[in-house]
């Protein structure tokens, strides 16, 4: 402690001094020695030191209100509320970080369970062709602008999918004993209220504009429908059969010699047979997102005789133009027929 500063101290300055107060409030031998020496050294400060000391000590003798007789009673209140005996009533509280961790974990678990229970969804954009592989190995080729949906936990008790748009299915055969077909061995494709049941086959399904077309390539499939107010007999398809479900009716449209051509779209091949222009361009609309404009609406009914098989949209439009003697203008995604 720098003693020299005290030589000029006033009464008030002693009262402001931390070391001085520390001595008056808590006298120790060391401090006593210091301050007594100081008084001796600076005798003109002796009075001020003494006075300041007396003032503080006198002040500290003031009346108090310690409320001692209430100490136990107030404690009893506290003990009753948080004491060891009160533990039964208490809610177990985890420390803060654990509570936060538990909350986060709970939310994560809910999210995972929710997502697990959500149906799986595969969607293609216009012009996009995608292969979906199912958990059992079944492959589905999806054409543009199409959606394939199936539920989580797929394959355990059933193999069901919902299709919008067009898809070519190669379903894995699971059944061992034809006499006893188990639940998960059947593969079902739902298209609105039409159901296509297979065991293991390859087939093409086109579900567009409230019309479903199913063409069987290999295997055997059974088509049932649940339209409102009608009972339809199931229809069993053999390879080459091509059926259409529309207006609540299943009708066999044709027997295809080369049903595999149905999946030509997957290679961006366009194969049409005796088809009207409207239908060809409809395909471009559905799967590729083109906008078709006819200057003359009757152009839709123009028919191409025989089979056309082309690869790519450009070639298709050229073929249309040549075969039907029409002008085809293409501007980005807009096609105009003149």
């Amino acid at each position, binding site marked *: 402690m720098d003693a020299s500063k005290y030589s000029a101290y006033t009464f008030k300055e002693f009262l402001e001094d931390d070391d001085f107060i520390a001595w008056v409030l808590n006298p120790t031998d060391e401090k006593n020695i210091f301050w007594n020496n100081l008084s001796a050294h600076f005798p003109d400060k002796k009075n001020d030191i003494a006075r300041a000391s007396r003032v503080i000590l006198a002040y500290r003798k003031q009346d108090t*209100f310690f409320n001692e007789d209430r100490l136990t009673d107030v404690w009893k209140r*506290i003990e009753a509320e948080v004491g060891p005996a009160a533990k039964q009533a208490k809610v177990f509280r985890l420390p*803060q970080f654990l509570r936060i961790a538990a909350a986060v974990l709970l939310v994560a678990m809910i999210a995972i369970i929710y997502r697990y229970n959500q149906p799986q969804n595969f969607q293609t954009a216009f012009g996009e062709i995608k292969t979906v592989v199912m958990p059992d190995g079944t492959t589905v080729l999806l054409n543009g602008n199409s959606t394939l949906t199936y539920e989580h936990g797929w394959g355990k008790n059933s193999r069901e999918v919902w299709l919008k748009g067009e898809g070519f299915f190669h379903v894995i055969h699971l059944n061992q004993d034809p006499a006893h077909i188990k639940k998960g061995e059947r593969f079902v494709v739902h298209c609105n209220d039409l159901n296509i049941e297979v065991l293991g086959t390859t087939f093409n399904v086109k579900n567009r504009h409230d019309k479903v077309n199913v063409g069987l390539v290999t295997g055997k499939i059974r088509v049932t429908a649940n339209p409102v107010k009608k009972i339809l007999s199931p229809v069993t398809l053999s390879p080459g059969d091509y059926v259409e479900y529309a207006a609540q009716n299943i009708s066999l449209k044709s027997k295809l010699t080369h049903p595999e051509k149905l999946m030509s779209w997957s290679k961006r091949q366009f194969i049409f047979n005796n088809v009207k222009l409207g239908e060809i361009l409809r395909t471009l609309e559905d799967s590729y997102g083109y906008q078709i404009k006819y200057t003359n609406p009757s152009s839709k009914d123009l028919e191409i005789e025989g089979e056309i098989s082309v690869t790519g949209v450009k070639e298709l439009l050229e073929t249309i133009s040549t075969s039907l003697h029409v002008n085809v203008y293409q501007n980005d995604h807009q096609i105009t027929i003149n």
Partner: protein
Amino acid sequence: MPENIVSIHEDHNTTIWLAFKEGSWEAYTQLYNQNFKLLNNYGYKFTKDVNLIEDAVHDLFIKLWTNRTNLGTPASVKNYLYKALRNIIFRKMQSQSRFTEIEDDYPFSFEVSFDHVVIANEEERALQNQIKSVIATLPHRQQEIVFLRFYEGFSYPEIADIMEINVSSAYKLLYKALTSMENVLKVSKLVIILALFSEIRVNVRV
């Protein structure tokens, strides 16, 4: 370097504080027992409503126990307790509409009385009366700072923390209080001689 002023209880508080934070009920009990009286005394400066003071002390200790795992270790436990109690009391008083905060002055009183003190000599009695008179003239915040400084032994930073002012304001506030006190407390040399004389007389008698 100025020595941190500590009152007698300070050192004990830190060790039991640490044990209490760990969950020691024993330490918590000690913390209560060691600070009950001083806290009541401090509270009594703000209000004479003993129920309110007891509720405040109760609330303070409940909060301490329930939050013990989240508490830090303050440099001065006493500082921490005083500040907390002050806040609780203010809130309780405000909710009772006992007062609305008026700038620079509060309707509580840190005045001093010496009614229950047995004084052996006249000089000290005279000094006490002088102290009592001058304190009574001070604004309440100056009264409080005098109390926190000279009775409780808090340092300027601790006072600033408790009263929620900055340290330089604390210096200024005490300076004002001491200036007022200095003018009144000028004890003449004559009185000192008389005091010394009366002390000698007492000694002789004994």
